[in-house]
């Protein structure tokens, strides 16, 4: 069988697996976020933390909950890293330096999971488990919660209440992420992923040379790293490391895990708004862009000058391109191949996936709320063309709604381009690059695109350990995460306060191909108008060389 045919069938297997779980998982998540019942464990949690799970919050309180929770998360994760020498399983790796500790804290709390550190050297098992694994769960649950608050804005009317952030956070963690992560961690161990509390094992090779092979409690973090679209590896090489991703089977499982929740959330959305077709149309747009970018990346890598540089033999070009497209189209950022060694067009494809704003299909929760915000922009543009007040899902899109949507969309490009611009004029930047010319520029562009979109993958040759990169990338992650979240919650609040307007003959149906084209076009158009000049200096120039 040719590798192209095998690769296409590999994609078919992946899509079939996603199709099987799409409805049950989507419907289950809809129930989790709409039932009034608390499980016993949850009721116990609410008692211990002294929150009333049955009181609902206004959008401002909901947002303060998100911000307050994330703030204490950053502080606690920073302190854990700084105090590492006092913790067990630290293996003498010492306190994480302040700049790096801040960057990591911002990174894991914002669901970015960018890695400026070499885990095997810097991070002991306690910080990995008690610090990083926890944020792998809860940062994903925060994304889910915000998405659900926005959906409630659409389905509720004449209320100022959006639900309870603590309930959404706890339910997302305990009912969705935890059971799925546990099961998939066991599956991954069965496929060969390590789960060891030792720091390493010493071996004497057949040639008599002694080596120490690093070990780590990988499986428990690997599963949630992918399920929660996080992406921070417990080993430096991330999912390219054979202990994180040992064979072509584990590779397929991992790609499945990083897509399954963002994809199924479109079903959850359709179910909650009372019309699954509303979800299918979003899925159609996401899937079309994901497939198109897969074709570009795969073709570019198959025909590149050095197709196997930075790729593992067991995955091949097809298994690497499929992972690369999926990890950058969701905001995961785990890698099973080194994107920095991709061709101009292939690497440019992974970059463009992020610049779409992470909605093809995007991160856990973030993908859904981002594409809903883009839908509002698309309906606004359509409204301008026909001269009608735009509506979406029975809600009028007035000045307040469109402003909030615009702020949410524009935050990422603003912090991204400012960061890149400043980095380029700083004297230390050119020495931090691993490749010359246009590709070196792409390394900087990719870094800020990854941080501002909370992706976390890298053109990893760039050295980002100086204070400027550590702090500016950390700030980009936080602003790229929390400006849109506050804007989205504000939008949700103002949608929920409206009453529903009945559909009329003039309402643009949002379940058909016209809307899908409009939405997909808006995603591409916004990214193109914002980023073509920057892309022309990097990947486009390189591809044309």
């Amino acid at each position, binding site marked *: *069988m040719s590798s192209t045919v095998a690769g296409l069938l590999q994609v078919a297997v992946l899509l079939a697996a996603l199709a099987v779980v799409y409805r049950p998982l989507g419907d289950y998540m809809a129930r989790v976020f709409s039932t009034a019942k608390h499980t016993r464990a949850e009721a116990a*949690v609410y008692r*211990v933390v002294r929150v009333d799970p049955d009181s609902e919050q206004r959008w401002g309180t909901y947002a*303060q*909950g998100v*911000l*307050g*929770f994330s*703030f*204490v*998360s950053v502080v*606690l994760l920073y302190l854990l890293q700084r105090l590492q020498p006092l913790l067990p399983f630290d293996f003498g790796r010492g306190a994480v330096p302040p700049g790096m500790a801040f960057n990591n804290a911002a990174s894991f709390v914002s669901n970015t999971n960018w890695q400026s550190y070499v885990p095997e050297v810097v991070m002991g098992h306690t910080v990995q488990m008690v610090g990083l*694994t*926890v944020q792998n769960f*809860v940062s994903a649950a925060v994304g889910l919660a915000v998405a659900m608050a926005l959906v409630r804005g659409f389905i509720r009317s004449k209320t100022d209440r959006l639900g309870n952030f*603590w309930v959404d956070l706890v339910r997302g*963690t305990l009912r969705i992420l*935890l059971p799925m992560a*546990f099961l998939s961690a066991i599956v991954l*161990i069965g496929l*060969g992923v*390590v*789960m060891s509390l030792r720091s390493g*094992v*010493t*071996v*004497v*090779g*057949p040639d008599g*040379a002694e*080596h120490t092979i*690093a070990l780590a*409690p990988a*499986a428990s973090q690997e599963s949630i790293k992918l399920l929660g679209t996080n992406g921070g590896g417990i*080993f*430096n*090489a991330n999912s*390219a490391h*054979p202990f994180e991703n*040992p*064979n*072509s*089977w584990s590779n397929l499982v991992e790609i499945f895990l990083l897509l399954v929740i963002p994809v199924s959330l479109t079903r959850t959305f359709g179910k909650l708004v009372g019309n699954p077709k509303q979800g299918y149309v979003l899925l159609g747009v996401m899937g079309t862009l994901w497939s198109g970018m897969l074709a570009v990346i795969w073709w570019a890598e198959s025909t590149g*000058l*050095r197709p*196997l*540089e*930075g*790729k593992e*033999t*067991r995955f091949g070009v*097809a298994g690497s391109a499929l992972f690369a497209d999926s990890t950058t189209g969701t905001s995961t950022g785990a890698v*099973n*191949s*080194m994107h920095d*060694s991709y061709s101009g067009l292939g690497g440019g494809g992974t970059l463009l996936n992020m610049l779409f704003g992470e909605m093809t299909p995007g991160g856990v929760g973030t993908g859904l709320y981002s594409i809903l915000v883009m839908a509002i922009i698309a309906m606004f543009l359509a409204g301008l063309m026909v001269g009608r007040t735009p509506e979406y899902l029975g809600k009028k899109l007035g000045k307040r709604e469109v402003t909030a949507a615009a702020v949410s969309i524009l935050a990422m490009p603003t912090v991204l381009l400012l960061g890149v611009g400043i980095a380029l004029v700083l004297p230390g930047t050119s020495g931090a690059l691993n*490749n010359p010319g246009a*590709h070196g520029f792409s390394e900087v562009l990719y870094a800020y695109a990854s941080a501002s979109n909370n992706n976390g993958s890298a053109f*990893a040759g760039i050295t980002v350990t100086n204070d400027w990169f550590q702090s500016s990338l950390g700030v980009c992650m936080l602003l790229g995460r929390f400006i849109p979240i506050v804007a989205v919650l504000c939008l949700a609040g103002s949608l929920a306060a409206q009453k529903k307007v009945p559909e009329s003959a003039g309402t643009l149906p949002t379940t058909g191909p016209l809307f899908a084209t409009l939405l997909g076009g808006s995603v591409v158009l916004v990214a193109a108008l914002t980023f073509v000049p920057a892309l022309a200096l990097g990947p486009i120039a*390189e591809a044309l060389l």
Partner: protein
Amino acid sequence: MNNLVKQSLAGLRVLLVLTVITGVLYPLAVWGVSRVPGLQANAEGSITSRNGQAVGSSLIGVDPVAEDPANDPWFHTRPSALAKDPLGPGDPSSSLGSNKSAVNEDYDAVVAERRTLIARREGVAEDRVPQDAVTASASGLDPQISPAYAELQVARVARVTGLPVDEVRALVADHTTGRGLGVLGDPAVTVLDLNLAVRAAK
């Protein structure tokens, strides 16, 4: 502002409880399950032992070094960005890709040098050296090579070890993993297991 402080304190309490559940109980539960016979060997790194001595992991590729380069009995792994030299072993206590782009003249020279060294070692023309033999893997620890690179090394290994070429080729076939489900990934040859099998056959 008072409300933000109040929410932060609630957030701290929730975070501490979720830390116990997802940061302590969850990883320990996964670790506990991984102690089950059948999973434990995987969980501890799929270590291979010979005569009670751990010789490596089937999942981790570390290039073996020949005592006498003129009589090199080993199948070799792909180049590693962890290695000091263009070819040679990397250090498996870490993991790293080269992150070199296709448009990079300095790196072109490294790739060309690898091609020359390998062609000389195998006694073949440079254009017969496959891509994976001269490019660094993503992890720096790729345990496998392409069937083409294994085939390139068969004649030399047979000559140095004194084994018949057909027997060495059969050992290569024994240690080749096909595509999962017939479609996943690419076929590949596991270098450590193959080297151990060759040594046992000698």
